[in-house]
């Protein structure tokens, strides 16, 4: 079987797909790509079924090499990425095999990666999570119907862990596709302030008036404590007045308020149950936007009704389903 070798693993690269849905009941978290749209787009660009897995790379710094020709696409955080040929030797002693000049690869486009070529993704200029999708997907048996890695539990993905140098991820032998696709460039995602749409629910109605007012009118700051589990925000101390709560289910985007009064937005690898009061949940599309922001970003919440939330989700689902890709010139060599 063909494989993709991890030459440089980057800071935290894992195998992810659309997530593990349906197992919260038994305490198994959702996981999956933090930026669901970027993942979905990448899979479309290489002609994959949405549940084929891709590499999720946080803060770039990864180099990979395939031993077969395949098509790849880079989506998510905007990074410089390039392909070099003939770099088989690791010793560097063989002058005939010095890497060629790097060939920059376009963002969000189908790109041919030939056998033996080295693909490197630099640290992104903006954003956090990049996705490297590979035609045919990564051949890993699903666990609880998903190939996503939950590092905390050692579940799924490649041996349940973060990728390391030397890992070999199995690929399908014949993986190239005939068409080349592209996607119009995003507008730059470098805003230093974002507004997250918050659906008030869970304990929102039990919160005191001033706490609710803070949530809808205060600007919070994204702290350094942010990972696949959650994003901790800093701001005025919120006092929920709720002393005791029996642990109950959480959901993607739930905004927990622990006793220190600093809100925590729960993300893909969140705990399935929690005993802290929750002011509601931000929309899943906004979870992806939040996940792509770095520490220091200013955060505001905008309360949204369920009707409006439904409309946003519908539009998003439709947009994803009807995704219009550009067909590129197939002469890519």
């Amino acid at each position, binding site marked *: 079987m063909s494989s993709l070798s991890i030459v440089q693993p980057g800071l935290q690269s894992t195998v992810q797909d659309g997530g593990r*849905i*349906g*197992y*919260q*009941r*038994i*305490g*198994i978290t959702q996981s999956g790509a933090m930026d669901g749209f970027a993942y979905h787009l990448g899979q479309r660009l290489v002609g994959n079924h949405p549940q084929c897995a891709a590499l999720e790379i946080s803060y770039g710094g990864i180099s990979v090499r395939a031993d077969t020709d395949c098509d790849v696409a880079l989506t998510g955080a905007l990074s410089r990425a390039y392909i070099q040929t003939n770099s088989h030797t690791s010793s560097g002693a063989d002058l005939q095999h010095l890497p060629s000049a790097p060939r920059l690869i376009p963002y969000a486009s189908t790109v041919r990666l030939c056998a033996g070529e080295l693909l490197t993704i630099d640290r992104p200029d903006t954003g956090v999570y990049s996705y490297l999708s590979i035609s045919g997907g990564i051949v890993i048996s699903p*666990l*609880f119907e998903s190939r996503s890695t939950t590092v*905390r*539990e*050692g*579940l799924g993905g490649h041996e349940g862990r973060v990728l390391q140098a030397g890992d070999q991820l199995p690929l399908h032998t014949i993986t190239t596709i005939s068409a080349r696709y592209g996607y119009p460039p995003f507008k730059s995602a470098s805003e230093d302030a974002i507004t997250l749409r918050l*659906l008030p*629910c*869970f304990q929102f109605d039990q919160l005191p008036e001033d706490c609710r007012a803070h949530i809808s009118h205060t600007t919070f700051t994204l702290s350094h404590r942010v990972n696949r589990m959650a994003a901790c925000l800093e701001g005025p101390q919120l006092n929920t007045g709720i002393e005791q709560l*029996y*642990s*109950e*289910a959480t*959901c*993607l*985007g*739930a905004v927990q308020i622990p006793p220190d009064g600093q809100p925590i937005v729960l993300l893909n690898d969140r*705990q*399935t*149950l929690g005993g802290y009061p929750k002011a509601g*949940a931000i*929309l*899943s599309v906004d979870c992806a936007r939040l996940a792509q922001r770095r520490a220091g970003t200013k955060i505001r919440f905008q309360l949204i009704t*369920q009707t409006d*939330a*439904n409309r946003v*989700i*519908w539009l998003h*689902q439709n947009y994803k389903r009807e995704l219009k890709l550009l067909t590129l010139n197939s002469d890519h060599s």
Partner: protein
Amino acid sequence: MSTEAQTLMTKLGFDIGIAGETGFLLTFHDEPSRALTVLIIRIADNLSAHFGALITDLAPAYKTLAIFYDMTHPNTSALHPYLIALSQNVSLELSRAVSRQIDVHAGVFDSTPDSSPEGSPDNSRNSSVDAPLNTTIEGSGITQRALNNVSEQQIALPVYYDSAVAPDLLALATYAGLSIEQLIALHTGTSYTAYANGFAPGFCYLGHVDSALAVPRHASPRAAVAAGSVAIADRQTAVYPRQSPGGWRIIGRCPLPLFDAYEQPPNKINVGDTVRFYAVDRECFLSLGGIL
């Protein structure tokens, strides 16, 4: 309707809230009890049976049931009205069923936890739990088929209660004014109800611990609690399935694995199960696969 039945109806009902963009959260009025947990699981099974693929996940906990759904499913709009009907029917039907045998009221819906020191199962209570819940709830679709899916295993877990594996054993005994033997007798002398699976795969919240052993969590959690650690927090007890950070007080260690991704079901303990602990010595702990 009698006053008692009306009171009961209020207690048994639930509020329908939302849990994010594609979820509902049912919050039950009653305090956590075995009867309430059985009811919650039965409602969960009923919803699965009735709506099939529309329901993407169901997460029961102490007094809540989170229902997650696929909003692209054609039948999505039927879910909320169904929940409203269910809440009315659950209250009405259960209160009628119970008011017919009002003597069981205290036994079923008393939120005082089980803590019979002899550990003998209270059969009268168990049968009274079944009486109202086996009632078919007309119009809401709760059928006998759905009712059969409740996990009600009896599980016995061996525990090595020793300071060598339990850093909080001595301190907790001192705190409670008990000898270690008395502490063990109280912890093993109770049948616990499995209220929720969560925190980590294989972790199951069990209650209620005898009030003499109720102790708050550590102010700051330990960075690493060993796999198998048997612990107490307030009136809950649980086994840590694998090494993880944790703030509960550790009183022993269980040698058996509690989660296996390749087993069906993967969790050894599931919501609705009854769990008892029994003490084993070092030799037995090791022979069962325990690691010191």
